[in-house]
């Protein structure tokens, strides 16, 4: 039989080699296209079949897991009796059933426990965490953390974070500086939540940027975590070489109104990067302290437009009244619209007797266009 097959193949090859070159190439292309199409279809079918089997298994296993959790946690008879959660024991037969030995099923258990924990806190939330530990699922998560694929690492970090399980600094800290952006963001969020002693330590080693979207996430976590001890962010403003870390710290300094950071922020006024300098000026303005006022006015003439605008805004926010005359002169003499509008806004923002008199005076002596600017700035519905 093999000989026949070999003979057939040989014949086909001889026929093929006797064909003109163009036909040979065309046949080769057709052959490759057919093989690729068939492989793709087989691969799609195989994947679909696997997904179907997984869904079937999931549909079978999920109610069993839910029932186990309901019985062991939600309906645990020791709940509400004032017993410490650590002393509440589970039915060992139920939680060590052989069904929970398969890795796939263990992953489903983890996912379901996490879903429950997102919905329950208090005693039930703590008992779910205990179940996660007692079923040794925590070890599964740590195993995933040691895997090489970053998707697995993210999954592991998320699980451990949800379950409030500490991760060693030596494991998590390097991941906060990973060159994979998603892993970096997840690790940083987890580090802040899980590190009890120094949750901002990763700022020290961060060489990768904290992207604006990640900053939003981090900001939310920092400002909503109740037990977080807030350090003085001026530390990173002074020493960090990572501009995104410094920019982020400037925002945190404003949020926590860290007045003691003013000298460190003022140091940034000497930086060569004018976008960065504008951030620092913005921060100083929002801290509303009179300390940097004089320096800001002194450097005003040498600054690019974006920094000048920030200085004018800062003077309005600080609102000491010491530089009303400066603002007036800028409003009257500047050619740039941004300078004019921000000077006017800052004068109005002072909202003192003196500033109101100045506005009245400006309405008399200024041009028609400038009067329009003042009227526009006086509209309380337009956000400053």
């Amino acid at each position: 039989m093999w000989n026949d097959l070999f003979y057939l193949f040989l014949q086909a090859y001889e026929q093929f080699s006797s064909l003109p070159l163009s036909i040979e190439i065309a046949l080769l292309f057709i052959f490759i296209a057919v093989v690729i199409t068939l492989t793709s279809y087989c691969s799609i079918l195989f994947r679909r079949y696997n997904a179907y089997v997984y869904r079937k298994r999931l549909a079978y296993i999920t109610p069993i897991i839910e029932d186990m959790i309901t019985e062991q946690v939600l309906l645990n008879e020791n709940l509400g009796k004032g017993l410490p959660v650590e002393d509440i024991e589970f039915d060992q037969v139920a939680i060590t059933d052989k069904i929970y030995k398969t890795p796939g099923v263990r992953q489903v258990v983890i996912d379901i426990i996490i879903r429950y924990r997102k919905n329950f806190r208090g005693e039930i939330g703590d008992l779910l965490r205990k179940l996660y530990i007692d079923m040794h699922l925590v070890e599964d998560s740590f195993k995933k953390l040691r895997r090489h694929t970053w998707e697995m690492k993210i999954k592991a970090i998320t699980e451990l974070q949800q379950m409030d399980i500490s991760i060693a600094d030596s494991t998590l800290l390097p991941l906060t500086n990973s060159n994979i952006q998603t892993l970096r963001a997840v690790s940083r969020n987890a580090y802040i939540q899980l590190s009890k002693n120094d949750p901002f330590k990763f700022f020290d080693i961060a060489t990768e940027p904290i992207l604006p979207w990640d900053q939003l996430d981090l900001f939310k976590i920092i400002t909503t975590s109740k037990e977080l001890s807030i350090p003085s962010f001026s530390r990173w403003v002074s020493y960090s070489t990572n501009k995104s870390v410094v920019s982020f710290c400037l925002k945190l300094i404003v949020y926590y109104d860290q007045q003691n950071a003013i000298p460190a922020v003022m140091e940034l006024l000497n930086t060569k990067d004018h976008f960065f300098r504008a951030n620092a000026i913005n921060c100083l303005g929002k801290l509303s302290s009179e300390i940097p006022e004089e320096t800001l006015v002194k450097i005003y003439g040498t600054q690019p437009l974006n920094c000048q605008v920030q200085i004018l805004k800062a003077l309005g926010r600080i609102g000491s009244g010491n530089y009303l005359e400066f603002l007036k002169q800028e409003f009257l003499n500047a050619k740039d619209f941004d300078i004019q509008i921000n000077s006017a806004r800052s004068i109005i923002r002072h909202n003192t007797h003196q500033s109101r008199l100045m506005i009245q005076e400006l309405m008399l002596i200024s041009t028609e266009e400038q009067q329009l600017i003042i009227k526009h700035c006086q509209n309380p519905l337009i956000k400053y």
Partner: protein
Amino acid sequence: MPNILLVEDDEIMLKAIKSILVKEGYKVFTAKDGKEAFELISKVSFGILITDLMLPHTSGLEVVSKMRDQESTKNIGIIVVSAVGNQETITEAYQLGADEYLKKPIIATTLLLTIRKLINDKNIKIVH
């Protein structure tokens, strides 16, 4: 114990809350969206409604509002349980007629205490 209507689209949460309430002796009816909830209300009388805000087809706020508008349900106790925690939504829920607002993740004992408080405050009749 009064009948409780639980409206929640997350099946896990639905089962979980139901089992906690049933353990306490309440008779619990469940609905996965506002439409199902309205159908149940037309057939059964309830003392307490526990509803999520993010529901398919009809939002939880619409459910609350409709309950308060209808004569037969305007006096029932309404508890909103939601992961939405912004002050605007909470205020809106109260303005539309919610009695209590519990933010997820919830504490089971708080939910039970809230139900008991509503039963006492509103003098909700016990169905046998």
